[in-house]
């Protein structure tokens, strides 16, 4: 991808983020207000994207929901990838029984019935948590549960580095395990970790929407891209009222722009 397109992507992304940021203070004050005289209103000068079924301003909810998702999904993805880097990278680098044990642990983690575990986790959580606390808990859970698949990929890459000339030389120079991992292995895994990070962000946004069905998602009245996308369950409604597609459109645009910022070669290990 040429540098010009990357610059363009960066500019567009900054414009989108600046616009969202600019509208955030107003949105934070009105996102939960129900205009009961105008439920399901069409776009107008009063409500640029219309209102939802409860009469809440769709634009205000989209702006705040974008803020929530764009702040927390990447944070969760970062934590998840960090865990995967430690587990997968450590296993790949160590080899032998440590590798086998960590790989088995990862496989075991992947095979657990997460749906039931999540239901149990929700049962343990206190009921009286504010919507903001619920959103933090949701994304923390996603981060803590989302690392195993990434860890497998990272482990494979780290294992390929284990007997490389680079590490052989580092070991010959007396590098210990931690230094070897932090200084020599991690920088070489950077591209794959970055790729996994960008894969995880939209996955976590959508996972949050699905968690809502288990009562683990972002609690009312706080919006997120996840719960705004639930509007699209009503297929006919989305066709008749295209403004409902705005969260999906914004998600696609932001994710595409973020992907465009990193060249293909960045993702090759």
């Amino acid at each position, binding site marked *: 991808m040429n540098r010009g397109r990357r610059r363009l992507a960066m500019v567009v992304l900054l414009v989108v983020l600046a616009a969202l940021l600019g509208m955030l203070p107003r949105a934070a004050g009105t996102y939960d*207000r129900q205009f009961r005289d105008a*439920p399901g209103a069409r776009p107008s000068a009063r409500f640029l994207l219309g209102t939802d079924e409860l009469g809440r301003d769709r634009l205000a909810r989209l702006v705040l929901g974008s803020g929530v998702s764009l702040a927390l999904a990447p944070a969760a993805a970062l934590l998840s990838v960090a865990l995967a880097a430690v587990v997968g990278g450590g296993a790949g680098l160590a080899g032998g029984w440590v590798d086998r044990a960590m790989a088995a642990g990862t496989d075991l983690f992947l095979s657990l019935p997460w749906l039931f575990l999540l239901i149990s986790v929700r*049962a343990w959580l206190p*009921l*009286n948590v504010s919507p903001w606390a619920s959103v933090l808990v949701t994304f923390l859970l996603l981060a803590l549960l989302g690392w195993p698949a990434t860890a497998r990929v990272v482990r494979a890459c780290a294992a390929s580095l284990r007997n490389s000339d680079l590490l052989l030389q580092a070991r010959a120079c007396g590098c210990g395990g931690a230094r070897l991992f932090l200084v020599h292995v991690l920088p070489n895994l950077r591209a794959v970790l970055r790729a996994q990070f960008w894969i995880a962000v939209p996955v976590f946004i959508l996972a949050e929407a699905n968690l809502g069905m288990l*009562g683990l998602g972002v609690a009312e009245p706080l919006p997120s891209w996840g719960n705004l996308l639930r509007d699209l369950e009503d*297929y006919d409604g989305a066709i008749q009222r295209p403004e409902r597609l705005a969260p999906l459109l914004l998600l696609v645009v932001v994710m595409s722009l973020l992907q465009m910022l990193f060249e293909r070669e960045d993702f090759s290990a």
Partner: protein
Amino acid sequence: MKRAHRWAVVAALFLAAAGAASAGGELRMVIRSEPKNLHPLKASDEASELIRYFTSGALIRLNRRTQQFEPWLASQWRLEDGGRRIRFRLRDGVRFSDGTPFTAEDVAYTFRVLLDPATASPSADAFLSGGRPEVRVLAADQLEVNFPKPIAGIERLFDQLAILSARSPNGETAVLGPFLLAHYEPGSYLLLRRNPHYFQRDERGVRLPYLDAVRLEILQNRETELLRFRRGQIHLIANLDPELYLRLQAERPDWLHNSGPSLEAEQLWFNLAEAAPIEPYKKAWFRSAYFRQAISHALRRQDYCRIVYRGLATPAAGPVSPADRFWFNRNLQPASFDPGRVRRLLEQAGFKLEGGKLRDSQGHAVEFSLVTNAGNRNRERLGAMIQQDLAEFGIRLNLVTLDFAALIERITRTFQYEACLLSLANLDLDPNSQMNVWLSSGSHHAWNPNQKAPATTWEAEIDRLMRAQAAALEPSKRKALFDRVQQIVAEQAPVIYLVHKNVLSAVRPELRNVEPAAVPPQLCWNIERLYLVERR
């Protein structure tokens, strides 16, 4: 002459149409879950009960439209000995689906199976509520059932009692209903075929049912159900969601039925259980009738009907819906939104508003959680609206949606909740079926179940009234007693009733004779008289 010719054509067309009524056809409809048990005495879930209704015969049937009992397998019945005995005379010439004759011995056998603990029939408890009944066969077509104590409204129990054959080699698969189960493909569909020996005939002497078969497709997804209905792959949709109803209304208003308020009520209650692991100061709020009444008057029920249910619901005044014509207390009005009254009631309960937050007499900010089941969009919206209504009075409500099983666990076993939003349907019209809801010792006494002794004087009063109405036989006396129960519930607000959503359904024009009712099975209660005509 010309005129006579025209009348002859009209008459011919009429006869052709009448002929079409007995022309058969296969009715296709959807059930939303797999039937859990096909034994007619063990049916407990909605799908199993529908199959029982289509395949079984009862001695007495509740006409879902008129809400009156009518003779069915019994041509006559009479209550004797102060309601301790019910005597039946059975119809002549009735046969099971395999041709075995129906006699009083079959009813006696049905009772033996029903009351056998090994059957574990959910219907048995209602018959055993006054002690074990005894059945005496008087003749092949006559019998009496003796109860140790009188049971008020006893007829309703016989509407749900499927009669089994004592002599048929086919066991419970020999049925007296209009259809019999021909094929069951688990996870896919059930096919019911016409019972060739069904006893009912129409006014012209044609043997019922008109339909040849009923195909019940197992399908959970409501959007897919709507799609199949539009394509003509199914003939009806019962219990339509308001959103889907309005969507169809734009296309086919003539296919829709709005039968008014349902028997179901959306309701909110606070956890008053002694053992509930919640802070003592919160228990004190919830136990205050002033607090509960204030919450009730802070809610805008009209808005819930208009916005969440798109105008297809009615504000609820109490536990009984206006759809239950006899038992509904017409003197009750839904609690109106009244900010002045809310503030007065909260003041009386010792609350005060400070800096936009409501605080109790000890200075605790009023904040509590409301649990409901995840996945029900209308209920989630209702919760969000309640959240805003209460915020106006400085009350912070945390809405928590939980998986249904986890929710039931909390409200029935662990009592780890503060308030709950759910709906309850009184599908059986008689209040006797709700004894375990209203008695303080009842397991379904939502706000404080299984009490050893009534916790409050008004609960003791409800216990007394419910027992008195169960022992009374005169309907008017029972009605007066149950009206008082509804009055107490409205005054004390242990449960805050919100809305009754309407019974909405869609029926394709080729299906005829449909008479929607509030009592299940709402669209198919007269299944034996439904018929299909060919569409041009």
